[in-house]
């Protein structure tokens, strides 16, 4: 009996480990977009000069009307955007969680800076 | 005792290697400003044309062993089983401090990883992949320049040429394994679209896979037996195309006898299928493509095949090895830019007097993203008894680039 319990516990542990690996190791693609968008009826204009950093990655410059790609691992992330607002450097930092089942997300940087709802949304490639 | 032996053997091996290697490095250092170019090809039994291209370069620039510039090595014949050997062959070239470029033709599986390793160690070496076997996205991520034959443009151009020759039916011979290759499957789709648009009938015929149980002989036998029936069924004005090299020879042989057209092979060369099908001996002309073409053409005409059989005047494998080697050399000397199409064509043209080249950058069908280091090229089609068809001048309609 003791043995059965220990064995099922070990099996469970293995299963949990697998799930742990699955969730923490799941890679996602995040598209960082610097285009003028309309979110919730408001238009957010593209920003001229802008640097963005996801988690502890390197800072990358996103030009106007450009879209770059970042690969991230796991569910909880932090995005840091540094931009010039009328000559003053401003930093926006946002934490967000993404779903494991969704491979790709699109982040609208103007939306993020403007504080719009829905600055992050799932993105699917049309097959 | 065993453990001692292990240590002993290791020590001896290392000692031996250090002593000798020291010697060899000294020997190399007196050649001044020169640099080396590594060429990796298959062997004669696997892909003769590629190897002859390397020999052409050695003829011109000398081999490293004799104080020249070209270091030529080969990958294993059964490269699908010995990926580790392929990798160490390529990575081994980077051990030479004077190595400045590595050209792999054909870039069989393992090339990408080998390139990654070379890059980690020696970022200064130019890495060029000719006729990449691995997935385009994979090889693009590691190579400085990757070359494939332009399966997209040729998908349209072969049909176009066939049309010009007066063909009304196009038969595509292949088998499931080949149709699992992205490039081959995509070309087939373009063939079908182009043929339909030009009012030609497109037919897909399945033949046995030579790597399966039937073997090469069985597959060839199948072609020998089926071609007359196909001609009977689809008529004399039918062009044939097959994706497998082994199928080519029996196909040509039967087409010469029973009628039908053959625009060009999958990897076109005057040596592809023709010598065997025509029963001609080309050993005297080895490596001299104008002479080879002349002899093949004469025999074709003699057998009544004028205007029905085509090829590229210069072997694709041969020119790719030689052309890429030359291109790498030009780039290192500062005479060319690596990713400039016209510079690449210049290097290719050196080995193909009289034949025109054209090409384009590879565009991923899924995302529509154009790769800046992956070039697809093609040579003018040469129809025997008719001459060059001028395919590089033909404009390929935009829509075919997105056919999946």
């Amino acid at each position: 009996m003791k043995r059965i319990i220990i064995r099922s516990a070990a099996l469970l542990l293995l299963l949990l480990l697998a799930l742990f690996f699955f969730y923490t190791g799941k890679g996602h693609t995040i598209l960082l977009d610097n285009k003028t968008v309309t979110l919730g009826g408001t238009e957010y204009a593209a920003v001229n000069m802008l640097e963005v950093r996801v988690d502890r990655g390197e800072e990358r410059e996103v030009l106007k009307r450009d879209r770059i790609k970042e690969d991230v691992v796991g569910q909880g992330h932090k995005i840091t955007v540094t931009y010039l607002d009328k000559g003053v450097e401003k930093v926006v930092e946002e934490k967000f969680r993404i779903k494991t089942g969704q491979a790709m997300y699109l982040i609208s940087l103007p939306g993020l800076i403007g504080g719009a709802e829905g600055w992050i949304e799932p993105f699917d490639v049309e097959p | 005792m065993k453990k001692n032996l292990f240590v002993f053997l290791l020590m001896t091996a290392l000692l031996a290697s250090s002593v000798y290697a020291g010697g060899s490095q000294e020997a190399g250092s007196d050649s001044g400003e020169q640099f080396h170019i590594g060429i990796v090809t298959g062997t004669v039994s696997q892909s003769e044309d590629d190897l002859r291209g390397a020999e052409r370069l050695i003829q011109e620039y000398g081999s490293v062993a004799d104080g020249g510039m070209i270091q030529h090595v080969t990958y294993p014949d059964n490269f699908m089983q010995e990926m580790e050997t392929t990798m160490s062959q390529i990575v081994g070239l980077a051990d030479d401090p004077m190595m400045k470029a590595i050209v792999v033709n054909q870039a069989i599986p393992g090339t990408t990883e080998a390139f990654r390793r070379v890059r980690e160690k020696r970022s200064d070496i130019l890495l060029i992949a000719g006729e990449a076997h691995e997935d385009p996205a994979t090889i693009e991520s590691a190579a400085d320049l990757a070359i494939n034959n332009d399966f997209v443009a040729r998908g349209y151009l072969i049909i176009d040429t066939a049309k010009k020759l007066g063909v009304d039916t196009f038969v595509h011979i292949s088998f499931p394994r080949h149709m699992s290759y992205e490039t081959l499957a995509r070309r087939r789709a373009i063939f079908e679209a182009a043929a339909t648009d030009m009012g030609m009938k497109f037919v897909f015929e399945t033949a046995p896979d030579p790597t399966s149980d039937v073997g090469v002989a069985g597959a060839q036998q199948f072609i020998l037996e089926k071609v007359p029936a196909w001609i009977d069924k689809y008529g004399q004005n039918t062009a044939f195309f097959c994706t497998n090299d082994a199928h080519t020879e029996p196909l040509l042989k039967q087409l010469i006898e029973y009628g039908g057209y053959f625009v060009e092979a999958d990897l076109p060369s005057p040596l592809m299928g023709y010598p065997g099908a025509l029963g001609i001996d080309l050993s005297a002309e080895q490596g001299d493509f104008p002479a080879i073409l002349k002899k093949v053409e004469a025999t074709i005409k003699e057998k009544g095949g004028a205007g029905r059989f085509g090829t590229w005047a210069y072997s694709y494998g041969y020119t790719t090895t030689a052309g890429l080697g030359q291109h790498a050399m030009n780039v290192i000397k500062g005479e060319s830019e690596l990713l400039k199409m016209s510079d690449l064509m210049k290097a290719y043209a050196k080995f193909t007097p009289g034949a025109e080249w054209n090409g384009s950058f590879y565009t991923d069908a899924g995302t529509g993203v154009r790769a800046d280091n992956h070039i697809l090229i093609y040579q003018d089609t040469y129809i025997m008894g008719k001459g060059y068809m001028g395919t590089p001048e033909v404009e390929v309609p935009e829509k075919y680039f997105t056919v999946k």
Partner: protein
Amino acid sequence: MSQNAPLLEMRNVTKDFFGNVVLKDVSFSIERGEILGLVGENGAGKTTLMKILFGMTVIQDTGGYGGEILLEGKPVSYKSPLEALDDGIGMVHQEFSLLPGFTATENILLNRESTNYNFMTELFGDRMRTLDRAEMKTRAEKAIEKVGVKLDENTPVSEMPVGHKQFTEIARELEKENVKLLVLDEPTAVLTESEAEILLKSMRKLSEEGIAIIFISHRLQEIIEITDKTLVLRDGRIIQETPTDQTDIEEIAQAMVGREIHAEGDRAEVRTFNAPHLIVNNLWVDMPGETVRNISLEINKGEIFGIGGLAGQGKLGIPNGIMGLYPAGGEVRIDGKTIPLNNPREALDASMAFVSEDRRDVGLLLDEPIDWNISFTGMQMQKRFLKPVLGGLFRLRDDKAIEDIANHYIEALEIKCMSPRQKAKELSGGNQQKVCLAKAFVVEPDILFVSEPTRGIDVGAKKIVLDTLKEYNREKGTTIIIISSELEELRSISDRIAIVDEGRISGILPASEPSKAFGLLMLGKVDSKGDSK
């Protein structure tokens, strides 16, 4: 369970292998602490009896047995030796069942090792327990002590002298806690005299502790010395069952060999020879289980020379060594010419032929037809039965000649078969033996070794085989060396007989000597002066 019931009782045990009766109405009993001596010639049924006791699968596979076996008054019938072991019956085999690469300790405790707990057992079961080497060592030492010998428990079996192997095996049985009955099958055969003495002593000690022992031995001296009761088996029947103190070696020997009276009648005529043909000097042969240690022989031209002796003493090693089948050394000369050893080809080229005791593995190509088997050696060695094609460029098999020769021997030896094309494996044992003989006859050797020619064949076939050999000898003048475990068979055909004991010749006598003399030689009773001519 009644306390007065004997420990083990066998009642009317009967066994036949497909009609060939090997045991008939065998009944006996053994008490606790009693030592029973079981003697009999090879093939008398001792081994079969023990196989029945232990429930070896071969018994069930061949139709079971008749009669019943009672252990402590309860009828038992074992399906496998393991069940017998569980009931406390242990067996020390004649052939070593030890693992050569394991140490004495590991062998003694095989599958009964002491182990320690570790956590992995919870996950993967008890076999994940680690071995407790220290505990194993003490247990092994204790068991060895019980046997009463000095034995390094850390020596691998492969590096042990034979005697120690035997002791290891006995120690293994004694290590089992509940052992009540121990069967020792010829345990002293491989031991030196002093070693045997130790063993006998420990047997006595065991019997005092209440362990019953069935002691199978050919050394009658030991039987007399140690057993409480003697049981003589012959041809599957109990011939004699007496308390040991009421009998003697001569009586037992006679009961064992038995057939002396009628065998005397058809003795071969006495022939004399004086041309030495085959001379063997200081031969040793490394044949497992049949080691030849030091043998010198002189055999005359045209003679039929018998070599006898008990199983495992080395008589089979002699032909196998001379013919180059096993590593051998010493000197072998034919008509003065030295024959290189360890090379079967040389032996065959010297016009010697060998009919092996191992019909199934060495002697016959079982999947091939009779005619092929008969002609094979001739074809291989002497390029016979081949006809030249294209002016001798190739040689093809001459099927006609092969068939002719096959038919000839089928007729001469009365091989019972449908046609010469019948496969060898479809023949009965006796007929297979005849094919083997025919095969040897075809090459027309000067010297023919015949090893155990009548093993496992019925009486009628035996006679034909022996008569054929005799006739062949008389007709062609071939020197024949016949090796057999059956003394009477040797006596009926041979001119002289050598008896091999412990890898040495214990004596050479004319076949006309009474069987008792040979029996004593076999049992190593007589000092090996003998008549070596």
